[in-house]
């Protein structure tokens, strides 16, 4: 296990390093001069020269890349062009909002999707099963920006119950949560449907397996058979895609943050693109990539924790 962990961590670091390298060089991959693009046509030569120096664009590319990586490793992502505030501060504020959004959505997807799937699997082809299947398939087909707009129209506007925009104040948990609930639901709904389908399929497969027959033949209680013996095996495929789900939720947060005007990473990156604010864009993409990689690492590890067969294969090699 330790060897596997080390190997896996090494891979993670390698991926992060590659992303960082790419981001450092990305300025040069964009057609045209970044500084001229940034400052616009009315900039004087002197302003351009100053800006270039400030961004370090006159250094050899290798030096630029190395210094970006080196600084990034120490938490320094440069300064915002417009406000001169450190990018790391902007990004870390936004990261908090995005992560709480993504995690609550993940919690909702798993917390609602898995029971829905189990419920459908307990009585296959019953009315209950068909109803949940209609619900989950329609959930899967709903893009988060459509759901988001509908939720926005329904709750804050028609019913006037929940706040429409903004992220609320993190120091007041209840207020923050009230702001979070609608965007998180909008984001989660596809994955609720997806998890429900996945769990239903694997649950049905497991319930038909020999060891479940054996458990029944040995007089184990139905609840033990279904929720302890069967479910543990049936959630393994779902856990395998948790990492993908989290990454997908992070990516999907861009739309939702825009609709609900939340100051998250997605919004930050979007505004940075608009303003050609390279340091901010680089910083936010780096953090998104980092989150994605870590999420996958965690999913892989938990997968191994639940399924002993994989654990032993690792021990043997």
């Amino acid at each position, binding site marked *: 296990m330790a060897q596997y962990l080390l190997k896996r961590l090494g891979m993670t670091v390698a991926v992060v390093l590659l992303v960082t390298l790419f981001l450092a060089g990305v300025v040069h991959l964009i057609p045209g001069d970044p500084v001229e693009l940034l400052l616009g046509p009315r900039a004087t030569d002197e302003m351009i020269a100053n800006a270039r120096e400030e961004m370090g664009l006159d250094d050899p590319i290798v030096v630029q890349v190395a210094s970006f990586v080196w600084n990034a490793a120490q938490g320094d992502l440069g300064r915002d062009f417009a406000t001169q505030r450190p990018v790391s501060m902007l990004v870390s504020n936004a990261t908090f909002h995005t992560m709480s959004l993504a995690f609550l959505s993940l919690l909702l997807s798993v917390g609602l999707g898995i029971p829905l799937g189990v419920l459908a699997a307990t009585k296959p082809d019953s009315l209950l099963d068909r109803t949940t299947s209609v619900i989950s398939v329609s959930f899967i087909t709903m893009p988060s920006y459509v759901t988001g707009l509908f939720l926005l129209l329904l709750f804050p506007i028609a019913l006037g119950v929940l706040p429409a925009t903004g992220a609320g104040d993190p120091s007041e948990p209840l207020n923050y949560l009230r702001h979070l609930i609608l965007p998180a639901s909008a984001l989660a709904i596809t994955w609720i449907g997806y998890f429900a389908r996945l769990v239903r399929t694997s649950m049905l497969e497991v319930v038909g397996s020999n*060891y479940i027959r054996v458990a029944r033949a*040995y007089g184990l209680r139905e609840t*033990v058979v279904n929720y302890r*013996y069967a479910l543990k095996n049936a959630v393994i495929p779902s856990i395998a895609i948790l990492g993908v789900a989290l990454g997908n939720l992070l990516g999907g947060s861009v739309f939702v943050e825009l609709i609900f005007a939340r100051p998250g990473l997605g919004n930050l990156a979007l505004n940075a693109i608009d303003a050609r604010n390279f340091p901010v864009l680089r910083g936010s993409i780096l953090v998104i990539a980092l989150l994605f990689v870590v999420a996958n690492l965690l999913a892989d590890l938990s997968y191994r924790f639940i*399924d002993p067969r994989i654990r032993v294969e690792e021990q043997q090699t």
Partner: protein
Amino acid sequence: MTGPILSVEHLDVTYHVRTGSLPALRDVNFELQRGEILGIVGESGCGKSTLSSAVLRLLPANGDISGGRIVLDGDDLGEMSEAELRALRGDRIAMIFQDPLTSLNPTFTVGSQLVSVQRAHRGSLTSGSDDLRERAIEMLTSVGMPDAHERIDYYPHQFSGGMRQRIMIAMALLLEPEVLIADEATSALDVTLQAQILELLRRLRSERDTSMLFISHDIGVISEICDRMVVMYGGRAVEQGAVRDVLTDPKHPYTQALLGSVPTKERRGQRLTTIPGRVPSLSEMPEGCAFATRCSHAQEVCRDPGPTIVSLPGRDVRCLVHDPDSDYDTTAIDTAVDPTTPAAETGGWLAKRRSVGEVLVDASDVEVHFEERPSLTTRLLRRPGDVVRAVDGVDLNIHRGEILGLVGESGSGKTTFGKALLGLAPVTGGRVTYDGEDISGLDQRQFRGMRRRMQMIFQDAHASLSPRRRIGQLLTDPYIVHDVPHQDRIPVPELLEMVQLAPEQASKYPHELSGGQARRVNIARALALRPEFIVADEPSAGLDVSAAASVLNLMKDLAGELGLTYLIVTHDLNLVAYIADRIALMYLGRLTAVGPTERIFDHPAHPYTQGLMDAVATPDPGRSQTPHRLLVPGEIPSPKNPPAGCRFHTRCRFARRDSCLEEPHLDHVDDGHMVACHHWREILEDPDAAERAASPDLGYAAEESGR
């Protein structure tokens, strides 16, 4: 209390499907006495599994008990509530299932599963988890698991198949059930493991006096372990009585045919009995005797509703032949077709066969090593990857016109060797010549011309037929692949006729065929190119006894008519004893013995040969029920890391530190009988030496190293 522990009284089980009701069991009647092992034998579809599910009241949702009673020690199972039934399962009746690999939950440790079973019945009131765990360790030890206190925390996949079946048995015995049901408990195991498990069950019976219902399709196994037996056919118990009586004097025509279709050494040169047609499906089950449609004794009265059970002394038979009060005309029985005495070979296939000729296939020092894909770290550290030595230096000649049987446990490398001869597995060392031509160095393209002369019949008949192609297309595929001009092709109807299939089958898809028919299509496809040499991998595997018998008859006929040379790869010693001219035994990639069939069987000179012969279950009332004295302990080690010296020494009774750590070479005994053992002279001089040789107790160590 006396009286039977379990009685099944006139049991009817019906499955309800959209088209109506299907009778799965009809009027099944038997009693299991205390301390008795009762065998239930029958081919697939006869209702064996339905019976075991019915006894636990665990029938599928669409099945119900529509008549009769199941009484366990005075308690009628039909009157029990779901909660009472749950309390009974595992506690008073416990079951051992067929497939040990899938019977245990992969995500829980063995210990936690054993504790859960106890907790389901004893609750946590009477004993703490430490006691339950102690009890589980005790049971695991008693079924032969070494270091049980440590291995109880292992997960199921960390055990071998044989060990997992021992765990299942431990689970079954945990709560000291009144009745143990073993449903094909040894069918998925190798012959040596099967013998070990049977030995274990026998020992447990004598120690604990457990009553056991032993369900199997294998009459050999039934005869090894059971006191009495029930023969099932078409959802009915057609005959029951003491095992010895039924085997020596079967009364029901079905039992007679079934016994006649088992290949054994004694039947060499005889045709096996086959049963025409197939078991009627549940929806077309006749009103009268279920066997009437296939019975050579059937008369008009047999088709009238149900022959009732005829009680003879010590025997119940459901057949009108034995009922003096029926309208059955016993004078009309055609004794010529009495299935109890299988017809001697009509025409004599031995006579028809060309005499054994010159060497056709010559394998010298053949090696097939597979390199496991090394992981990134091993590659970075430049460590060598694991090498699986599937075949590791085999010398074997196959003569033209001969039937050679290649026998070994799973993992011995026998199938890989067969494939290597046909260029279907890479020969990484040594040489294979075919008809004088070196074929081991040929690439795929060069091999193609060769392949017309040699064909393989694969083990899984259905899986080797493309599901989306009709039989007719499948049979002409070889011609297209090899670009055979039309005038040289054998027409499809003729090919089908060669394997005794009707021409209409050509338009069917593989899934519409039975296992036996699919096997015949495979044989027909192999024959399409008029090959000389055929490698048949487990030709009887997965087939019912009677279907297997007719496939074997067919293979023999074809050998005679077409002068074919066969390599029959199998784990079934009975089969090769019946059909093969010579036998080669393989263990962990090496040959342990080669020789003419009679010599191998009459003078087994290798401890492994002795062990396999001792382990094989034969429906022979004289031999069976004697304890296995030469049992091979443990399980076959991994071919990745074979034991040093003689590979068999870890499981051998004769293993000596001084000699057996050196690799033995094939030594000439006599008459083409060769043996790779340092001690074959002692073994042959003193046939009882094996029994006296102390059990090496190395078996479990061998298994460890194999994991």
